[in-house]
């Protein structure tokens, strides 16, 4: 492989990984506080729809982002109301959000835009453009690493870089602040948090609010950067893959980042390996590479390569003792 191929492989890895990273961070925030989020897929889909619909109607990027944020927050507050306040089943809620989102986006899309569920293509002023366009030609002049850097690292939009910043921010929030310590404690031993005079309910509400905000970015990315418009079912299992990445990263933001990059790389690779025959193994079926993230996650969960330990109180609603 030459440096141009490597550069474009790196670039598509980052492009594919970005929504996964954002979504996985949303998952880490919720699950570290003790609330399972199986609704990532549905939240992302509804946020993507809000971005596409409002972006197409108003032609304004801030409004599109704001609507995604509003939808993301509303969904995570619904999540909190049902599961934290009323101790509803968190798995069932996730399934409900995902099912409703899959139907509702198509129903509203068809009713409002009459394009079979798609939204009109967004104008370029709304979509995100590459951030460092100017620097690329200058860098390409460098031998070998030039094209790699220019193609692979510099041709991206702001959200791609923001997702990396967010990983650091989530890590810092969870592991270097008092709030993060409490949030993690709410996921491990909520009774202790309560005994220390801190409200478990409030912490979980806050964690879910952050979860909704970050998840809305993941949805917005799909419409603003990946595809020019909203398309029905465009998340295509990314929410579940992000969930797998979060588990593969052992519920740690940095671990989840590596897992997302690995899954993104596999995805980018599977497209390039299509119809290609490798020296030792022969032709690798695309489906095998596509299934690999899930297989790896199952193997990890089974404890055959390391141990993924979930937060101890994950999935159990907190009942205050009286």
């Amino acid at each position, binding site marked *: 492989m030459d440096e141009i191929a490597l550069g474009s492989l790196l670039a598509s890895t980052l492009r594919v990984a970005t929504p996964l990273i954002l979504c996985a961070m949303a998952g880490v925030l919720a699950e570290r506080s003790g609330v399972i989020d*199986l609704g990532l897929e549905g939240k992302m889909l509804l946020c993507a729809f809000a971005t596409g619909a409002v972006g197409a109607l108003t032609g304004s990027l801030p409004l599109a982002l704001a609507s995604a944020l509003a939808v993301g927050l509303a969904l995570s507050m619904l999540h909190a*109301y*049902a*599961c934290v306040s*009323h*101790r*509803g*089943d*968190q*798995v*069932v*809620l996730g*399934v*409900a*959000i*995902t*099912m*409703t*989102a*899959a*139907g*509702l986006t*198509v*129903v*509203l899309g*068809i*009713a*409002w835009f*009459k394009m079979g*569920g798609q939204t009109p293509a967004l104008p370029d002023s709304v979509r995100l453009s590459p951030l460092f366009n100017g620097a690329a030609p200058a860098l390409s002049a460098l031998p070998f690493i030039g094209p790699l850097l220019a193609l692979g690292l510099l041709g991206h939009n702001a959200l791609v870089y923001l997702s990396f910043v967010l990983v650091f921010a989530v890590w810092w929030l969870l592991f270097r602040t008092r709030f993060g310590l409490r949030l993690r404690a709410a996921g491990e031993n909520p009774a202790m948090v309560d005994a220390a005079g801190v409200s478990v309910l409030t912490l979980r509400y806050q964690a879910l609010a952050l979860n909704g905000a970050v998840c809305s970015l993941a949805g917005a990315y799909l419409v603003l950067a990946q595809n020019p418009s909203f398309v029905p079912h465009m998340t295509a*299992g990314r929410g*579940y893959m992000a*969930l*797998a990445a979060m*588990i593969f990263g052992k519920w740690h933001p940095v671990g989840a980042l590596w897992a997302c990059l690995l899954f993104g790389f596999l995805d980018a690779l599977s497209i390039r390996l299509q119809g290609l025959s490798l020296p030792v193994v022969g032709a690798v*079926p695309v*489906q*095998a590479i*596509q*299934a690999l993230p*899930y*297989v790896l*996650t*199952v193997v990890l*969960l*089974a*404890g055959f390569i390391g141990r993924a330990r*979930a937060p101890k109180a994950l999935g159990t*609603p907190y*009942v205050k003792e009286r």
Partner: protein
Amino acid sequence: MSVASNALPRWMDLGLLPALNLAIALAVCGVVVKIVGHDPAQVLALLVKGAFGSRAGISYTLYYATTFVFTGLAVAVAFHGGLFNIGGEGQAMMGGLGTALVALSLADHLPAAIVLPLMVLAAMLFGMLWAAVPAALQAYRGSHVVITTIMFNFIASALLSYLLVNVLKEPGNMTVESRRFADSARLPGVHDALAWLGVEWPRTPLNLSVLLAVAASVAVWALLWHSRPGYSMRAVGFAPEAALYAGIRPKRQVMLAMALSGALAGLVGVNEIAGVHQRLLLDFVVGAGFAGIAVSLIGRSHPVGIVLAAVLFGALYQGGAELAFEIPGFSRDMVFTLQGLIVLFSGAMAQVLAPALQRLHHALRPAAATQGAAHG
């Protein structure tokens, strides 16, 4: 451990509360119908007419219901064993694969009387095996069955796609599907069966799998409430520690519950592949596994409830298809929306109204008591 804390009387808990939740889901869906510019009352009337208004409509409703009985029972059996099986989707795909493999390899040489039972068995076996792996990982390695079954859905879909594209696809056929089965691998339609009896019935996808669904419901009922293994399974689901103390081995119960659950989900393959399509397709399950969660929630995980809920959902699917045909701009996805809303309000938020009902009950009870005293 928290025990269900709602102290409602039985008729409120089992009758009023679920009815209210379902009504809220329907009302919210009605609002969505209104938002997209249709008249909810007209939509409801057309939906009922489409689902039950003709013999063909009823047949279609029952055909969809057959699939939902299988996936609903699958979710319910796992639930009674204390497990949440979200893998119905993948297990159903594998069931279809098992059905198709038997049909493709044997149907050319053997008569239907041998091939059809083998196809049913293969569907159950493949579904069972696909559920057994997550079950074993849960029982012996402690990996959470919810996550592993989700992962297995994706793995199943990749496997099915690989087999169809690279192995089973008919050469020269552009669509991704297997060759058509020989005639002996065709499960007779209900119209065929009625024709043998001399009754004329419109030709629909409804096939004899519907009898299989009835049999499965009775079998699940008998197993769970009238047999020793079923009792052990429910004991583990209801109170794992007490069950362990009573000498029931929880690991085996996990395996049993998931194996049964997978076998039931696998039967979807019989209804769709052997009964209707006559060939293996890529996405013949189309969300039936997830619909099973809704069916089981509405049916309160009891076979009788599940059959009724499956007919309700079958009617929604069939009525929704008719609506999409009758009203321009009406999308069948409205039904999927309603399905999600039902899972939301009858499942995740099922207890939200309980405190209010409890207060209402308390407010009414003293009055009833004094009244009773006055009469007594």
